[in-house]
């Protein structure tokens, strides 16, 4: 598993992403600068980390989604290569046309930074096979624009094709209602591309890989990738 982490001006979670990937793969992933036009040869996984690329100017992820490296990331995804976008990375994937929909301002307008439970919708993908179906995991969320919105037809297609990766739930696994932190349609916390080789998610699994910080529920995602 050769992983790379793309660095945009304003990314700030690349260190956490590198640490999680290194823990899982045993190798330090290469950092790739956004102005590059090619990914390193033999790249299996591209991780777009969290942060505030370009200061969230215009719209979150809008400018990064059109950065030079993104043509290479789109080509990589089209070939079936793996792409994981976390938080701002998810926003970048939506703005860059790799995933449908958009992340809007949280419904209560607040930046939310807290622990959050998620339900793993399926455990047969390359990103989630170390989990079990409907497993409840506890990870961190930290975002101001995590309210997933798409037109009705897109939501129907995502649901019908089993492309919802994670949903917000409470500790008992009850989805929706007060467990939805940001107003996301259908409590969506993460979605897959049609071939399930691209995953975008608002929560931060890379921050929950060490018991020292309160849990290791995020580690399963990185373990899943390594089994590839």
């Amino acid at each position, binding site marked *: 598993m050769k992983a790379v982490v793309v660095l945009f001006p304003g990314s700030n979670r690349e260190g956490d992403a590198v640490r999680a990937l290194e823990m899982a793969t045993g190798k330090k992933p290469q950092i790739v600068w956004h102005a590059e036009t090619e990914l390193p040869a033999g790249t299996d996984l591209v991780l777009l980390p969290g942060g505030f690329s370009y200061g969230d100017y*215009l*719209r979150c992820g*809008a*400018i990064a989604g*059109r950065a030079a490296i993104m043509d290479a990331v789109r080509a990589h995804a089209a070939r079936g290569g793996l792409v994981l976008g976390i938080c701002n990375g998810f926003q970048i994937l939506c*703005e860059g046309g790799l995933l*449908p*929909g*958009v992340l*809007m*301002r*949280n*419904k*209560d*307008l607040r930046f939310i930074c807290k622990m959050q439970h998620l339900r793993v919708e399926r455990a047969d993908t390359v990103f989630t096979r170390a989990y079990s179906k409907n497993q409840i995991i506890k990870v961190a969320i930290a975002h101001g624009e995590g*309210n997933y*919105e*798409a*037109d009705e037809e897109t939501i129907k297609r995502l649901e019908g094709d089993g492309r919802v990766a994670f949903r917000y739930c409470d500790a008992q696994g009850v989805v929706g209602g007060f467990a939805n932190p940001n*107003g996301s349609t259908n409590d969506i916390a993460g979605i897959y591309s049609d071939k399930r080789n691209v995953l975008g998610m608002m929560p931060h699994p890379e921050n929950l890989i060490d018991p020292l910080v309160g849990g290791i529920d995020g580690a399963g995602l990185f373990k899943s990738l390594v089994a590839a």
Partner: protein
Amino acid sequence: MKARVTVTLKTGVLDPQGKAIEGALKSFGIAGVDSVRQGKVFDIELSTQDRAQAEVLLKAACEKLLANTVVENYRVEIV
């Protein structure tokens, strides 16, 4: 040549910022406000003097970056 691009949220897209502003206006006692939707304005200076060319260029700018057409509409005015 100067142009103004206005980007607004499509009808039906939740606009919590607009709602908050609407609530504030109402709380300030400004009567008669039914609803507020927040948008963005871009004032752009162009090197071309050709109107048709400017329109093509501005449309490309909107489609490529200025608006996210999933949730936003745009309007171009050459001023």
